[in-house]
């Protein structure tokens, strides 16, 4: 295979992403429910852990792809009614258009939640603790293993681009655990994302 230059973001995508990143600091996130059956120190520790996770989610850009963008008066903005719910299940993506030969190698949906490239089509995951469609049935062990190995639940298919798990994998176990604690504190939202799609030549 010939080598090509694979730009990680197209110009258009960059504009959306930069707008999204600029908005990240203004994100209002869900309130953290208080633990009811814990001692005061334990509850405080738990709250601190969730707050740490919230902080990490915000500064690391999790919303950039896991919270759909919508067009506002000033351009794309996060749809916080769908915070961290991943690719909207009501947004059916048509087959990705074929790109001509050349340096353009991938594309993204206007919501910044679906991407197509040489790996096929990937959709960002619902990170809320919904049992059927989100992280509700994940264990912390699986979540940490995913970040460490780049494999779905630590064992399955590869975590697909553009998820930057190799950056998140540098986090300490404590920080990944905090991320998980925060995500588990979110209100569960039922939003079934599509499964990734292999590139056309691979469909059988």
């Amino acid at each position: 295979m010939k080598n090509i230059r694979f730009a990680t973001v197209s110009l258009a995508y960059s504009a959306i992403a930069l707008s999204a990143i600029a908005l990240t600091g203004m994100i209002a996130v869900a309130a953290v429910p208080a633990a009811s059956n814990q001692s005061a120190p334990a509850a405080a520790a738990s709250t601190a852990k969730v707050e740490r996770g919230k902080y990490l989610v915000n500064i690391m850009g999790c919303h950039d792809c896991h919270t759909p963008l919508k067009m506002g008066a000033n351009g794309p903005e996060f749809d916080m009614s769908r915070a961290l719910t991943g690719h909207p299940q009501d947004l059916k993506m048509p087959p990705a258009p074929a790109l001509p030969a050349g340096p353009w190698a991938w594309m993204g949906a206007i919501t910044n939640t679906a991407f197509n490239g040489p790996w096929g089509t990937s959709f960002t995951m619902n990170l809320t603790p919904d049992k059927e469609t989100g992280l509700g049935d994940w264990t912390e062990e699986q979540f940490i293993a995913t970040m460490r190995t780049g494999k779905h639940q630590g064992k399955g298919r590869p975590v697909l681009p553009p998820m930057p798990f190799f950056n998140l994998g540098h986090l300490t176990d404590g920080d990944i655990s905090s991320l998980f604690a925060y995500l588990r504190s979110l209100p569960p939202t039922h939003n079934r994302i599509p499964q990734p799609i292999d590139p056309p030549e691979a469909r059988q």
Partner: protein
Amino acid sequence: MTPIVVRAGFAAVVALWASAVTLRSFGAPHGPGEDGTAPVAPRLLSETGLFLADGTTIDPKNRAYVPQYPLWSDGAKKRRWIRLPEGSTIDTTNVDRWEFPIGTRFWKEFAFDGRRVETRFLWKAQQGRWVFASYAWNDAQTEAVRAPDAGVANVAEVAPGKRHSIPGVADCRSCHDSGRTEILGFDALQLSSDRDPNAIHGEPIEPGMVTVRTLVEERRVAPARTAWLTAPPRIQAPDPLTRTALGYLSTNCGSCHNPSSSIASLGLFLKHQASAECNAALATSVCRTGHWVVPTAPDGESKIINPGHPELSALVVRVRSRRPASQMPPIGSVVVDREAVDVLTAWIGGRAIMSECERDRSATSASPSRASTRSSGSTGTSLVVR
């Protein structure tokens, strides 16, 4: 962001994605065990105890064995050995999870086109601690050197345009699942003398090889398990094809899909369990809907196994795939196991499994309580399969 130069095509992109984290995950090897740090495997294969002093003859203390249902590794020719410490026994109290004595060593050699490519080494260095290492053979085939913990990509061509990679330790542990099922391919079913004559890629037992019979007769297992002499373990199946299919799935899928795995919550259990009362592989796959659906299937018709319809069975579609979003197993192979696909297709398309589904449906309709049990899996978790 900095542009990244990669080969065109999804494989390179995903490999780059994966290698970034693999390199980071395990880093530099730990120091030697004497100073209190974690033990490490020797630098050279010849230092692991596999050979006699001449460096080429296998030490006779290392006993060869061959599992009756081998793992598909892109057609690699494999040789395997175990060394148990003198006078030690394997604790088989849990018949499905043997406990090996400290000091146990395993080796597995991979060869393609008559050339040794790598030898994997597992060493129980301490209680609860197995050391994993892979050794890459040199061009002269005279020695193998421990590979980096991140593995070595593309060391040998196994098919046109397809190359074998030495896995990183992280990949090894994703199947061997440290702390749960470290040793694969060396258990009662795999070493049974009641061999499946139709086992896919099955290999004959050579004289001197370890089997459950030799383990019992040489008193290498505790408890003694003398019943294995008269009733060697085998998969109880209604017909030979089902036996063969379940054996293949047990080896090639069951190391992850089993009740004690970190992904047990998926509710798909393809590992043969000698202690189980019923066949969990059938109970958790036949007519069951998974989260991963066959892309071409009409709504509601994609099942993990859809009896009579291999093309609507996610299991077959995924075994037949070598693309990142759908391949199963997700690692360890870049070439489709055509023989396995043929067997699984014939099995799922045949009558025997259809009757299994009908039996399941009638039992479910006759007993609501059983339906509840079946839908929740044997661990009480929801049946969610990705």
